[in-house]
């Protein structure tokens, strides 16, 4: 199964790089070449990179695209207006601190996605992940304990990510 996942990732990135320019014949040439190259690289690399995939993957992808990404983009836009408000005010309002957030997610890619989302949402920047703790720099410290911070910062993402990465 890991061979299939690696092959798909490599082939999709090749096709994305080639793009849709050119005639159908050219595209077919690129497709054949990309398949060959991806096959060769798959057998070399599959042991280094552990991409995993299973039969429920299409459903998860749909949930990711249609439920997670809108929430994420909305949070990103809010984050930028927050930054703009802070930058443009004459005296920058700050109450910074380093806090710890507990997460219930299992799996490395799930935690990576959560950490990336935390970085791109209002006022927070994830610094490191250690087991089930995420260390975060926030501009505005609100709660003291990891649980309170979780409610403030990451709860809405965790619910969705729990569905996507089982």
């Amino acid at each position, binding site marked *: 199964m890991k061979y299939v996942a690696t092959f798909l990732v490599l082939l999709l990135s090749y096709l994305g790089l080639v793009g849709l320019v050119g005639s159908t014949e050219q595209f077919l040439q690129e497709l054949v070449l990309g398949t060959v190259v991806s096959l060769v690289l798959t057998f070399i690399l599959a042991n280094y990179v552990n991409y995993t995939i299973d039969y429920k993957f299409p459903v998860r992808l749909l949930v990711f695209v249609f439920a997670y990404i809108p929430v994420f983009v909305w949070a990103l836009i809010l984050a*930028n207006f927050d*930054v703009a408000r802070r930058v443009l005010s004459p005296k920058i309002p700050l109450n910074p601190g380093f806090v710890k957030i507990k997460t219930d997610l299992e799996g490395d890619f799930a935690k990576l996605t959560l950490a*990336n989302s935390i970085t791109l949402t209002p006022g927070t920047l994830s610094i*490191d992940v250690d087991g089930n703790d995420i260390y975060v720099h926030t501009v505005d410290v609100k709660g003291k304990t990891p649980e309170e911070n979780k409610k403030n910062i990451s709860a809405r993402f965790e619910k969705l990510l729990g569905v996507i990465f089982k």
Partner: protein
Amino acid sequence: MEIVSQVLLVIGGLFFLLGGLGVLRMPDVFNRIQAGTKATTLGAFALLLGIGFMYPTWFLKVGIIIVFIAISNPIGSSVLAKASYKAQGAPSNVVQDDLKEFLGGTEDVG
């Protein structure tokens, strides 16, 4: 289509401006990382999407760049944040510092 693309381009430019301004105005390293990363990520998304709407055949390539920036930008800033914490410790105005127990305290190295 053209209108959408032009609006997106201007939005992208505005957020790049905001990123530069944020890096210039924020008082310490961690806040600079925050402002810079958020603003330039959204700016790059908007600008690249604007280009994609103008020339629909480029959409796949634009998508690859967007995916790459979406994954790589937060990782880069987290690496930088950890390195800056190790290099100069927490800034003086923090209210709470949970990171100290994890990364260890910093003695003054100058």
